């Protein structure tokens, strides 16, 4: 199953790297949002270290919605989704592969946009780099595993671009709150409670297990 999932992930990544359709859109969206937010919240303000972490995660979650939206919608053209369903790849591997591809794409976008954030908002994450990287990886996985699941659920809808964020964002609030708290701890230098890591890890494990278990139901008719 791991091998099959990796095949799917490689296919998605190759497709994305060749077309760059969601990569470019997500990257420019993050930069545009970072600039827009600088008008709403003054980056030179005294308390900017308190809220800039939250802003970063808002920007990342918008980029995430853009990327996971394409995950299954990409397969609609030429009935590729039917072909994938008919292939000997188990549904759970198909789902996991797509989630891993989304995860790597989103991580790429996030890491590329990170210097821009640090420069625009005069923020240093070097105080506790490993805490930040762990937060980044765990939260990005939470966003992509839930996002990819709902991408599969809404793939046949006319309004999927609208429905996906409406359904996914409320559910993503616990991991995003945890990520915001942890990132604030890294930026201000006052470490956040480790309970947020436990929340993130618990969320990731439970939702990955649920998604893998239900992938069969969602992806077969």
């Amino acid at each position, binding site marked *: 199953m791991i091998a099959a999932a990796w095949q799917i992930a490689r296919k998605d990544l190759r497709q994305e790297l060749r077309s760059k359709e969601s990569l470019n859109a997500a990257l420019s969206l993050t930069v545009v949002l970072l600039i827009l937010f600088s008008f709403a919240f003054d980056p030179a303000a005294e308390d900017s270290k308190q809220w800039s972490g939250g802003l970063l995660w808002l920007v990342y979650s918008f980029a995430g919605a853009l990327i996971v939206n394409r995950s299954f919608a990409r397969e609609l053209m030429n009935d590729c989704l039917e072909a994938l369903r008919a292939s000997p790849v188990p549904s759970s591997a198909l789902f996991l592969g797509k989630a891993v591809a989304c995860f790597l794409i989103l991580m790429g976008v996030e890491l590329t946009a990170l210097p821009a954030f640090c420069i625009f908002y005069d923020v240093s994450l070097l105080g506790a780099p490993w805490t930040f990287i762990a937060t980044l990886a765990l939260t990005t996985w939470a966003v992509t595993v839930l996002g990819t*699941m*709902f991408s599969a*659920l809404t793939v046949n809808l006319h309004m999927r671009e609208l429905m996906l964020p409406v359904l996914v964002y409320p*559910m993503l609030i616990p991991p995003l*709150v945890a990520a915001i708290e942890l990132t604030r701890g890294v930026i201000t230098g006052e470490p956040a409670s480790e*309970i947020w890591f436990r929340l993130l890890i618990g969320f990731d494990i*439970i939702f990955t297990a649920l998604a893998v278990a239900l992938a069969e*139901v*969602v992806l077969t008719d």
Partner: protein
Amino acid sequence: MREKLLYGLGLAAILYLVRNLYVIFLVLPDELAQGAIYRVFYFHLPGYFTAALCYLLAGIFSAMYLITRKWKWDSLAAAITEVGLPFAAMNLITGMIWGRIIWGIWWTWDPRLTSALISALIYAGYLMLRQAIPDPTERAKNSAVMAIFAFASVIFTYKSNEWFRTQHPGPVLSIRTGGGTIDPQMEWMLAHNLFALLLLAGLLLAIRWRQEERQREIESLRREALSFS
């Protein structure tokens, strides 16, 4: 027969609620510290319990649909989610009225308030997803999956409030505190109103369920008619 049962249930729920309102407003005294406003609590907490029970049952009914693939469970899950949301609204609105009087503000970003609002939003999303899928089989399947995710997410949002600093009053019921924080007469009244609201929820569920089943019947008849023509 079923019709008469529904009317009887409705009458019982109305009489019960009227009786409770009478006791709440005219028999029970004001609370020592809060005065008259504490009375919204008789709807606040039972409303929350009823909504939470509806969320839980929606998850169970959805899982039952995925296991058995019987339409009954899908209709029940849709009906109970719709019934649960007004009770969640009752909980939020009475809470806001209480907050305005006691805290001086309508809304505060306290984790318990936030998580109650988020849960309502998630289940509103569930109903929107149902509306958006035209094919009945796909609708039943996908919304059942969504309901299971929604319930897992509601537990997370609820749990995260315990870890967050909260300004919401702590538990008062004697099963949580071991007694002493609430007058037995008041606690008894809470139980009464909880039963009244559950009765009302049961009635609404029965009505909505029947509507769902009939709508499904009409849809299948329409498809049959179209296949002949």
